[in-house]
């Protein structure tokens, strides 16, 4: 009888452990906001995107917003980061707090001299890997023109496996208007870099289609 009971318990526990879902269904989003001189005026648009993300993300998801400045591979550049609670009511409170922080940033945003996009992406990947999210999104709100401080080394491959990278509102620079090939070259270079790192690349310039950000 005792043996039978032990056997039953072991079978049930094995069955339950077999059924347990090990895959993570949560989403992690890391948004990089370019705060360089040319892009400073676009901060309001970035705020709208953050608001959209706050309205879309579910309890258990993670969201972080960071600025791209002269040296972005740093926690100091993170404006706000949060993994939302499992309870919807607590999540709503967290989202309100998050919104407040982003609003404060947008109100007092200062332009940076350089644009270290690579450092920001590396920081994003690090954060997203830590959250253990099932789906990882890196959103780059920038014109994708990287300008590094002399001495900073960023010309090496970045590891982006399992990350979906989306460039948002990639504005055309004055020089792009002179030679549009520069714009395409810039975008293609980033695409090649992301895909070489194992990530998936997308460009979303139409901010009316924000639902495409988290679509697979």
């Amino acid at each position, binding site marked *: 009888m005792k043996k039978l009971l032990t056997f039953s318990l072991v079978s049930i526990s094995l069955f339950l452990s077999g059924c347990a879902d090990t895959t993570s269904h949560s989403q992690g989003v890391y948004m990089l906001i370019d705060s360089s001189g040319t892009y400073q005026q676009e901060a309001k648009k970035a705020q709208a995107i953050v608001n959209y993300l706050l309205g879309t993300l579910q309890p258990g998801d993670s969201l972080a917003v960071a600025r791209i400045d002269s040296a972005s591979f740093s926690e100091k550049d993170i404006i706000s980061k949060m993994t939302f609670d499992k309870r919807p009511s607590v999540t709503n409170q967290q*989202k309100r707090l998050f919104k407040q922080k982003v609003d404060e940033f947008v109100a007092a945003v200062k332009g940076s001299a350089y644009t270290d996009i690579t450092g920001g992406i590396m920081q994003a990947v690090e954060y997203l890997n830590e959250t253990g999210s099932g789906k990882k999104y890196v959103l780059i709100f920038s014109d994708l023109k990287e300008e590094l401080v002399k001495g900073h080394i960023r010309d090496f491959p970045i590891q982006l496996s399992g990350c979906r990278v989306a460039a948002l509102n990639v504005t055309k620079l004055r020089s792009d208007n002179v030679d549009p090939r520069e714009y395409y070259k810039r975008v293609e270079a980033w695409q090649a870099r992301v895909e070489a790192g194992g990530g998936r690349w997308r460009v979303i310039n139409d901010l009316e289609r924000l639902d495409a950000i988290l679509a697979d």
Partner: protein
Amino acid sequence: MSFSQILNIWPDSPALSSIIAILGAVLLLYLARITMQKAIFSMSRVIHNGFRMMARSVLIAEKKVVERNKEVLLNAGERAAEQMIEREFHRVDAAVRRDMSGYPALQRTLAEQIAHIDEDYRESSELPVPPPDWVKAVETLAKLPSKGDKWLANILGDIHKTAVAQHKNAMEEYRNACSKRHSLLDKMMPYWRKLSQTLDQVDKRIIGLHERTKVVDSRITEYEEIQKKTDTAAHMLTSSSITQFFISAFVLLVAIGGAVINFNLIALPMSEMVGGGSYIGNFKTSNIAALVIILVELAMGLYLMESLRITHLFPIIGQMDDKMRTRMIWATFIILLILAGVESALAFMRDRIAADMQALRQALSTVETAQPTTSWIPTVGQMVLGFILPFALTFVAIPLESFVHSSRTLVGVAMAAFLRSIAFSLRLLGNIAYYLGEFLVNIYDLLIFPALWLENLVRNKEHQTEIKDMTDINDIIVKEEVSQ
């Protein structure tokens, strides 16, 4: 040496080689004709018979299924008819008991009413005393001519006055008597009315009983038909079962709609309890928890209905003793009540969470939107819905039972139809195989038609020679007979 090289007898003349090869092939095929025909026919017959045997087996199986269906259907119908008849008899019994218990009082009422009417009638039939006959004689005397005699005239005048007074009195009395009679007859009216009402009541009861007996008669006829196991009864039960199937399926669909509404009402607040981000498989734990609550409610509803002996899905519950059954009724009812309360609370929580989410969305939205109306009506509505739906879902047990029972018949009918179609297909395949054999033989003959044509030619010639020989012999015999 390859096959093509063998066929190429004269390498310099491929056409001739081909013709020779074809002729050789035709010859070979002609020689093998009878054996080949036999082989093809036997092959087609084997396939044909195989398919026929398979079709026969399938038809036997179909027959068994049909018989089993009929048996199941008739048994179920017999049981249902027995229950119906029993219930009708109970109703008749109740009606008879109720009406018969009222009959002594009814009879007494009727007797009293009749006595009253009789009495009144008798009283009203007493005529007033007519004026005495001598009055007429006196009146005649009073009207006699006085012929100038003053004394006689006075006497006659007095007599006349007396007669008139007497008449007046008599008329007065008569009128009084008539008025009394009319008042008596008038008093009879309510008794008549009451009597009529009482008799109407009796009539209605009798008609009611009569109707019931008609129903019992029709049920008994149905029962007899079922007991005789006639095809009519089986058809009737099948069609009734199919109707039941569709009706119960429709009601179940309605119930599923209710369950979906219920699910949506409690799925969101469940995420507050079990967490919104956890998953079991590909499904949210909160959704599964909400589903489990609804399923538990359904199960409790089934047990309640079963304990109340409204449905008979679980014989073990029906067989319980009354005390245990009553306990079960109370237990399931209390669980249902608690679950209904939980659902009501969850509905309230859902309203709060939804309002909070709406407020957050508004805060996040850059566009100015209309302020939502803050009314307690939707909250109360959701709470009431959350409380009522578990009890409403309890009644799903009734259509579910009908669905289960009728689907047995429907599955049986579908199975029989499926087996019939398989048998038909097998027979068709068998026949195709048979005629395919004939077709192949004809094709074979077509391939060797030059040889067959030659054979025909030779046979005709032989036949003609035989006929000529026969004619010659006949001629000789005739000539010999003539010479003799």
